[in-house]
């Protein structure tokens, strides 16, 4: 079974600085998707960035980028020029690319990292 591990329960960053959130996962599959979701205090979970495992190029969305190391099964999120609005809980998630129905449709989450942004 696949697992997702976030080893940093809490992180803090100064406004305008850069922070990296860590995520590792375990899977025997070769084709899958990885996601970072953000959950602000309003509780609405929103997608930050996604990565397809078959793509070697790291995904980037404005100030957010990932460092995807497939062999190491590592998927870290870098937030550049941190803003007060980035303060939230961040979840790393895994999803299989297989389409056999049932369990292959599951979205598996880590335990989250609470990011504080200091003014």
């Amino acid at each position, binding site marked *: 079974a696949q697992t997702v591990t*976030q080893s940093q*329960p809490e992180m803090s960053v100064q406004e305008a600085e850069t922070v990296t959130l860590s995520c590792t996962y375990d899977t025997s599959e070769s084709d899958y*998707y990885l*996601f970072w*979701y953000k959950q602000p205090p*309003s*509780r*609405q*979970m*929103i*997608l930050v960035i*996604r990565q*397809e495992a078959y793509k070697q190029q790291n995904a980037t969305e404005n100030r957010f980028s990932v460092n995807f190391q497939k062999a190491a099964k590592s998927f870290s999120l870098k937030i550049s020029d941190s803003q007060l609005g980035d303060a939230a809980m961040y*979840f790393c*998630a895994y*999803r*299989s*690319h*297989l*389409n056999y*129905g*049932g*369990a*292959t*449709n*599951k*979205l*598996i*989450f*880590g*335990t*989250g990292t609470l990011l504080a942004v200091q003014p």
Partner: protein
Amino acid sequence: DVKVTQSSRYLVKRTGEKVFLECVQDMDHENMFWYRQDPGLGLRLIYFSYDVKMKEKGDIPEGYSVSREKKERFSLILESASTNQTSMYLCASSHRQGHCANTEAFFGQGTRLTVV
């Protein structure tokens, strides 16, 4: 604007009550999920459904059941609520793999359930 709507943001129920949490999505998604979120434990999957009337147990199904009679609606049922079911409940939906690549899950705003 895509939307996943959960019927309540806050609920307070008594021990032993039967509780229904409703979730509706307007994106014609095949998959729907119910997660439970607790501090330090992340999101744990309770049940999910990949089609109408189809359901699969997640990691923590004990004490819960689900119903999916229509594609847009996925209900979570606590047959006899207990205090250890006090938690945040999140509903999500997505297209099934193969429908389109790179499909993400969309979430409702969550229901904070307190069982007293």
